């Protein structure tokens, strides 16, 4: 995937004689081939998003349809001045920053081990893919039971820690519950992170590191001066995808706390307004805001790493 340059198809459509007809035919064919995929992608995203934009201008609830009224930007005003919205946004950002940070460090350590290891590679690859492939809801249940006050082993195993005793109720207050949610999230997604980082790591020529070693660079110097800078694209892709994924966190919260103890995320708030409260108007406004936030976030991350995304994706 990485050494694509030699085999990359030279563009067949730019022959010396300007055969515009042929180019036009190819153009048409290309468009026809991508059309079905594009239609399906737009059908389920662009159209509903426009509809959300429209609905967000109303006070509209499914169970009291007679009360529907046009409020223009009123819903947005309500949301943006609402402490609940900001609390949930803060929760989401916190979860995103902490989980991605931890995943990056642990994932990198895993990648280093996998890079160095010369035995049991298949076993390790299989093991690391299991958390990746496991259903998030299953992971959430597994960790909910792990932390459960009656059925979990955490309180028994870690009884000796000063802040854990047999009666520690992990879902009884905000920070404990947030911790449990983040553990499940980190457990499931670190493998993905480590695989991406491993791919980046194997890109670095061994002799580059050897040369640094010969020059007397310490392990830390080699890490920060040679290894990490050469993995920038891989790190960026990993961070971008994981961050946006973490920002949309929903499954773990739904299963573990249902949003109790103020552990709600932005996605959960939106879901609750739309599906549980059937507030289509307010919920749509939240949907639009969530979408804009994700766009902004993606933009910020790409800017922060100063990498052309399509280039990183292998697209010239």
């Amino acid at each position: 995937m990485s050494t694509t340059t030699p085999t990359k198809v030279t563009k067949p459509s730019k022959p010396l004689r300007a055969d515009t007809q042929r180019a036009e035919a190819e153009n048409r064919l290309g468009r026809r081939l991508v059309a079905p995929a594009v239609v399906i992608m737009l059908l389920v995203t662009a159209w509903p998003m426009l509809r959300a934009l429209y609905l967000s201008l109303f006070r509209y609830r499914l169970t009291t349809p007679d009360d529907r009224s046009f409020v223009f930007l009123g819903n947005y005003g309500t949301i943006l001045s609402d402490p609940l919205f900001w609390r949930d946004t803060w929760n989401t950002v916190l979860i995103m920053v902490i989980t991605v940070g931890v995943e990056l460090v642990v994932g990198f350590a895993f990648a280093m081990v996998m890079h160095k290891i010369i035995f049991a590679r298949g076993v390790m690859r299989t093991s690391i893919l299991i958390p990746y492939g496991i259903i998030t809801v299953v992971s959430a249940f597994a960790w909910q039971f792990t932390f459960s006050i009656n059925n979990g082993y955490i309180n028994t195993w870690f009884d000796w820690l000063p802040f854990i005793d047999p009666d520690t109720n992990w879902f009884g207050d905000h920070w404990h519950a947030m911790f449990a949610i983040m553990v499940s999230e980190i457990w499931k997604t670190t493998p993905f992170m480590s695989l991406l980082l491993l791919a980046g790591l194997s890109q670095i020529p061994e002799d580059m590191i050897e040369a640094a070693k010969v020059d007397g660079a310490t392990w830390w110097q080699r890490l920060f001066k040679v290894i990490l800078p050469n993995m920038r694209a891989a790190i960026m892709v990993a961070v971008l995808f994981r961050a946006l994924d973490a920002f949309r966190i929903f499954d773990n919260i739904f299963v573990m706390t249902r949003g109790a103890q103020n552990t709600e995320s932005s996605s959960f708030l939106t879901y609750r307004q739309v599906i549980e409260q059937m507030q289509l108007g307010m919920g749509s406004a939240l949907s639009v805001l969530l979408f804009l936030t994700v766009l902004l976030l993606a933009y910020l991350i790409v800017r922060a790493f100063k990498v052309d995304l399509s280039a990183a994706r292998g697209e010239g």
Partner: protein
Amino acid sequence: MATSKRGNVLGTWFGFALIMIWCLLPVVWIISLSFKSPAETTAGSPQFFPKAWTTQNYKDIVDNPDFTRALLNSFGIALSATLFSVVLATLAAYAIARLDFRGKRAVLSLALAIAMFPVVSLVGPLFDMWRTLHLFNTWPGLIIPYMSFTLPLAIWTLSAFFREIPWEMEQAAQVDGATSWQAFRKVIVPLAAPGVFTAAILTFFFAWNEFVLAISLTSTTASRTVPAQMSYFVGADPFNPPYSQLATASVVVTVPVVIIVLLFQRKIVAGLTAGAVKG
């Protein structure tokens, strides 16, 4: 030098052990929990392994029509979404890798934007649309959005694979007297198949895992998939979640994942990292 090398080996072993514990401990825990009797978990059973091993949970779960139905839904929906998504993505990826056409960048940007899309944002309007189109609580009601959200991943993975196919071999085969269909079937298909297969696995994982749409766009066992069904699991005791039964259900839905991983681990890793590391 020798000691530092031994230290390295020890460190690697240590890291290996750590990774194995990290990845497998929760899995072993869920398996162990699935062999505890419901009475044991209701009364509270904080020890890791069961006091008395029982296979009753597995018998119960197989006899639970809601669960088996959800399993059928999950397979049906995930496989259909995978099939349709991969076929459409193959066409698109072929065009992107091989043809020059206007709007190529737009297609890629669209795919990228959709890969980042907050699924929850769509739940409201989709629910509203699906209930007017009578797609609410049906298989297509889930298959269609699953296709949209897996297409980006499939298109990227496939175009990365397709770009590496030495297409000129096809021409060579034709020169050697093969018809273009033969050349396609004998030369290109075997080269492209692994990529298509990898994209299919990743797509299947997504559809198998999806939860937000599964709980929002379904309301009965007619179309509820396993993750959604599990979150509404009701045991014999209506007030306590049936821990051991949930653990059993978890083990059962994880089995296909483990099988796929065991068989195709190399392909999955290749697919996950395809195109992600250039630069």
